[in-house]
């Protein structure tokens, strides 16, 4: 039987629960992704927090907390058929014991491990490749995000520091996987006292953080339009580009190497890769 769920992690865990307690799941699809199959009507699974917790506890107890973390991370990847892949993984470990969980040559474990590696790599890469802009809430707009509700007019006498206080750091990313929450620990430690927003433009979500507290919320281009570049922003971007050009050693030019490390799909949000 095919399962259809709401696309949340709890929803997925509920499917795992149902797989064990009612009908066997042959396919698990997020709503919207599922394409109707004439022969067998799918089953709509209602997300049930209680069932989700039960499955979570079972994974922790019968496999390990590590394995739960892995399941969660892989669930956040953009992998076709990840639900069924994870279900098979969980079943295997339940049946054959926790030692299976990290046996990387096993055909059911290997794809899970690969997917986990992919999201891990993207998170690590983005820790370096994300570019922030200093922005202020637009004067006409209402409250900005990140907790600063100022009207945004910088009076001329204000010191640079005061202006900086009113600034928010805003970054656009278009990641392959749902990485926002995995970026949070690194960037909340990096920007200890500054409000910042990392906007996943592909999924219309944003990590909003200030003073080490963070959450993820829906965030649209309309929301983004309420943010205006701070007066100093342009200057720093230009300086960064100028620096970037200055430090390459022309005797050692190696564009292939550059492209290997910095895939072209990330370039649109990279300040230094914009045309001069």
């Amino acid at each position, binding site marked *: 039987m095919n399962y259809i769920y709401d696309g949340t992690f709890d929803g997925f865990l509920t499917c795992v629960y149902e797989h064990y307690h009612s009908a066997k799941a042959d396919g698990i699809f997020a709503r919207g992704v599922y394409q109707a199959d004439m022969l067998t009507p799918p089953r709509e699974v209602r997300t049930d927090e209680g069932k989700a917790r039960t499955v979570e506890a079972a994974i922790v107890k019968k496999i390990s907390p590590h394995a739960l973390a892995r399941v969660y991370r892989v669930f956040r990847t953009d992998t076709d058929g990840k639900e069924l892949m994870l279900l098979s993984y969980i079943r295997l470990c339940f049946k054959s014991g926790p030692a299976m969980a990290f046996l990387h040559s096993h055909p059911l474990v290997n794809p899970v491990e690969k997917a986990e590696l992919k999201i891990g790599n993207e998170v*690590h890469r983005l*820790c*370096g*490749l*994300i*570019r*922030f*802009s*200093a922005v202020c809430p637009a004067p006409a707009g209402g409250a900005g995000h990140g907790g600063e509700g100022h009207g945004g007019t910088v009076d001329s006498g204000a010191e640079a520091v005061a202006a900086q206080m009113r600034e928010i*750091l805003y*970054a656009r990313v278009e990641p392959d996987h749902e990485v926002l929450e995995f970026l949070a620990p*690194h960037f909340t*430690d*990096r*920007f*200890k*006292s*500054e409000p910042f927003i990392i906007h996943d433009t592909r999924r219309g979500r944003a990590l909003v953080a200030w003073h080490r507290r963070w959450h993820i919320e829906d965030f649209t281009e309309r929301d983004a339009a309420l943010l205006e570049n701070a007066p*100093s922003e342009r*200057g*720093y*971007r*230009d*300086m*960064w580009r*100028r*620096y*970037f*050009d*200055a*430090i*390459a*050693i*022309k*005797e*050692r*030019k*190696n*564009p*292939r*190497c*550059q492209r*290997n*490390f*910095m895939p072209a799909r990330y370039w649109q949000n*990279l*300040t*230094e890769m914009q045309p001069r």
Partner: protein
Amino acid sequence: MDSGTMEKLAVLGEGAKYDVSCSSSGADRSNIGRIGSAACAGICHSWAADGRCISLLKVLLSNDCVYDCKYCVNRRTAGVARRSFEPRELAALTIEFYRRNYIEGLFLSSAVLVSPDHTAERMYECLWLLREEHGFAGYIHAKVIPGTSPELLHRIGLVSDRLSVNVELPSETSLAALAPQKKPQGIFGPMRQITETQLEHRTLSAPGLMGKLDSAFAAGVTGGRGAPIPAAFEQAGGGRRTGAGEPDDDFGIAIRQGGYPDRRRTYKERFAPAGQTTQMIIGASSESDLHIIRTSEALYRRFSMKRVYFSAYIPVASAPELPDMAMPPPLKREHRLYQADWLLRFYGFRADEILSAEEPDLDYDLDPKVVWALRHLEEFPIEVNKASLEELLRIPGVGNVSAKRIISQRRTAAVRYDDLKKIGVVLKRARYFLTCSGRYYGEGELEPCYIRDRMKGMEGLADPSRPVPILDRARIRSGLVGAGPEQVSMFDALSGRQGGL
């Protein structure tokens, strides 16, 4: 920020680009300061057109040099634009770049502006502003100007994560000829001070020793010379230091109490916790590779260097003592030297094993480990099921990880040839040099010429389309300065002179 800053950044970034020693690692400054962390090492922010990772803002504080090192674009007699940052200006620029996530920290170097101490003072001011005024806890690597006084060096060390003093050239003769104002004492003195101060801090920050801190600290700072300690040091030594191995649990407490403990608001005051490195220019003078790796071996031993970097000389000036302007940088030589360096650091080789007076230069066609093996065929093939860790590490194609795996698998079952690949052994190289339960898998004889031919061209530099120039030794040797084979290395000279430094 005024428009001059842009101009300065271009000039002073360009001036620092030849410095190759650039990686952020080793320090832990999470949960402190107002901005930044050096907890997460190895983050690359971008890759320049030459394919090098950009992790730190690498700039000179000034390129207005009073020295005249022949190999340097910024030497006094060169006709280049001169610029200097104001310490405050550079500190602000660093923070703004850091906020935008362009960089992981600052790599600050400088030409000699007026004098070494004058320069060091300005560098210190810049770093101090970053740490104290901006609350910056990110990574700082400071390049120490040779001849900087111990007092200033100490202060700089307390606000930096990593320090480096460039040894510049592999021998005293070359140094005297190409960088006449730089003296060996000015280079090795600071190196030694860094090593000793770190040693001291490690001992002193052990539990139960805090009380002894001040007196011992004073002795360290003045190097036993009895000079008065400037007020700034006494303050710095005031017992706020945290040990290298201390768990960072203050933050957890802070959360429970709903605030941050005050002392954690500032960066951790430790002396260059990420150690020191140095850099040597390759190919500007005529030293043999043997001389170069002996020198770097001595540097690792005596000063506990984290790394010795090699920088292939790129001609910037024409002078009778220097290679021809048309000479391409000896990149392949640099690559082989790094491989030799790897053997020194991780494989238990000694410099004298890799090269000898009869064969003082590396073979640019082959990995030095293969060369060594071919020269010592009497020790091969090695039986993987019997050999010690040290012996396994001598087999070309067997690395540290695979050697350890072989040993651990042997405990349960004999290693079979088919297992070796999974274990991570590079068989196309290794098979000529090992047996597995008595069987030899390299086809043909264990015979140098044969193996050599099979291996040549099997590996190259990362990009085969890139021209790989080989240094024309004869041409270089004839015209260049440098230590001849009979000449003592500057480290021999150093040990003889130790007391006077």
